[in-house]
């Protein structure tokens, strides 16, 4: 990485340092408390009862159909909804703050007047967000994997790594959506709205789509389905889904970068 890029990267990380620490800490605490509750839950047998009154379809929709098993427990309480949703929100808010937010506050004015290409500034800032997501994902993965080993849970290490990977990529994709909206000049607010909307609608399609004949054909459009449709915790990395997540992210980021180079920078 040449010197201007590393400087922009360092500054970008420095800017989001506090929020990054807060998010990482919150998600690690979440993961630890979910996994930490496992031994008592397992011994009490409470988990089998939890989904017994619910129809199998609905239980699957909320990822609580196999709560009694260790992997089902992790999926239902962490990987099916909570972690992807929170990591996705982290991705979206960090991206809009570092790109559209700083632009609208006039903080990019001087940076973009320096001898650095505008696309480079925006791309490196996207990279800062990705770095934050990777860092947080790794910390969450280490916390979960450490607990799995400590509590001797019946979960494969590869499965935890696989689901961490797809959840992280899902978050990166939504960062990309927010980035593209900013790139096309719609600003921070719309970027936040669109990307969070994609996140929520994607979840609903993935969770509720299979129960509705009308929505069923649309399930495969949901990035959540690409990331979690094949239960990576049990079956390992879904390479097709990973390819879709990566390809979609590359396309939206490329489109946003193309657009940002051809528009006016907003005035503070």
């Amino acid at each position, binding site marked *: 990485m040449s010197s*201007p890029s590393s400087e922009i990267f360092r500054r970008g990380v*420095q*800017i989001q340092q506090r929020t990054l620490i807060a998010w990482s800490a919150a998600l690690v605490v979440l993961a630890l408390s979910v996994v930490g509750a496992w031994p008592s839950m397992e011994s009490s047998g409470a988990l089998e009862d939890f989904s017994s009154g619910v129809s199998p379809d609905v239980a699957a929709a909320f990822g609580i159909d196999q709560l009694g098993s260790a992997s089902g427990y992790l999926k239902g309480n962490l990987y099916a909804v909570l972690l992807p949703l929170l990591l996705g929100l982290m991705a979206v808010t960090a991206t809009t703050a570092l790109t559209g937010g700083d632009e609208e506050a006039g903080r990019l004015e*001087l940076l973009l007047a*320096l001898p*650095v*290409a*505008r696309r480079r500034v925006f791309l490196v800032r996207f990279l800062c967000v990705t770095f934050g997501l990777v860092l947080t994902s790794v910390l969450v993965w280490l916390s979960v994997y450490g607990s799995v080993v400590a509590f001797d849970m019946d979960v494969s290490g590869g499965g935890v790594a696989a689901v961490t990977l797809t959840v992280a990529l899902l978050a990166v994709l939504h960062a990309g959506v927010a980035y593209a909206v900013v790139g096309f000049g719609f600003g921070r607010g719309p970027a936040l709205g669109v990307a969070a909307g994609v996140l929520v609608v994607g979840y609903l399609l993935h969770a509720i789509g299979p129960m509705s004949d009308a929505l069923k054909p649309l399930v495969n459009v949901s990035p959540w389905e690409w990331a979690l449709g094949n239960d990576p915790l049990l079956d390992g990395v879904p390479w097709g889904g990973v390819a879709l997540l990566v390809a979609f992210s590359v396309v939206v980021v490329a489109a946003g970068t193309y657009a940002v180079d051809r528009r006016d*920078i907003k005035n503070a």
Partner: protein
Amino acid sequence: MTPLIECTDVTKKFGDFTALSQLNLTVPPSVVYGYLGPNGAGKSTTIRMLMGLSRPTSGRVRVFGQDPTEPEVRRRIGYLPGELRLDERLTVGQTLTSWGRLRGLRDTAYRDELVQRFGVDVSRKVRGLSTGNRRKVGLVGAFMARPELLILDEPTNGLDPLMQQVFLTTVEEARDNGQSVLLSSHILSEVERVANLVAVLQDGKLAASGPTQELRRRAAQRFHITFAEDEDVPLAALAALDGASAVERRRPDGQEVSLTWAGSPDALLTFLAGHRIRTLTAPEPDLEEAFLEYYQQGVPGSRSSTAKEPSPAADPVR
């Protein structure tokens, strides 16, 4: 020789609003160029296009003969934005270091000299700085790499008079060093000491441009005269002088007279020497008085020179 800055028929629209209309502007090398106009005239709009931050709706902007959206062109420019927003989370020192790294600045001796000269405290956090102190940081950043061209948007905004002098000295040094400066301001006197050439912008159009001295000579100046109590106020005679316009009593039957005077005040002073006056004041002309109203009345010589008694509705100060 390629002009440093060349705007050809540049129009910039924001929706229905035309911020700049058919602007033609040429800045030759090795000058200090004053870019004047009241707030909202389109100065910052022009400057942001010169920095490649926005693009003209139509027309062509060239800096060093190149499109300023190319990053390499900007290596040769130092920029101070009109709306300077620094990163609050950094210290002043970190901010300057970061700019230096992004510019590839190696020699920091001049930067340190500027820091001394402007009295910038590098250890302070940006968050606590006043507008004037932020401006000083911005100025150090613009000058520190000794760029061939400096584009400074309202650089003296928020600076105290002492720092304004330091700033003007720094601009003069830059000029002597062969650098060029584009200086925007809404106050004529701020730029007239250092600018060789000036352009006056109004409502997105060029109202006047040329050598500073020449424009200054053509500029109108307001004079306020208080005649002695027992002296008859020679209103008609004043109005008849070549160069006087808008001659008016400030109050009905009062001894105070205001007038706008264009050109050298010799004739006015000679005339006043024949009368007993108590006070003579000439407030620093603001831009609108100096150029804009004046030029709206058309070419010099065709101005109305009839004396006016204030009507009750007229604003007596104006």
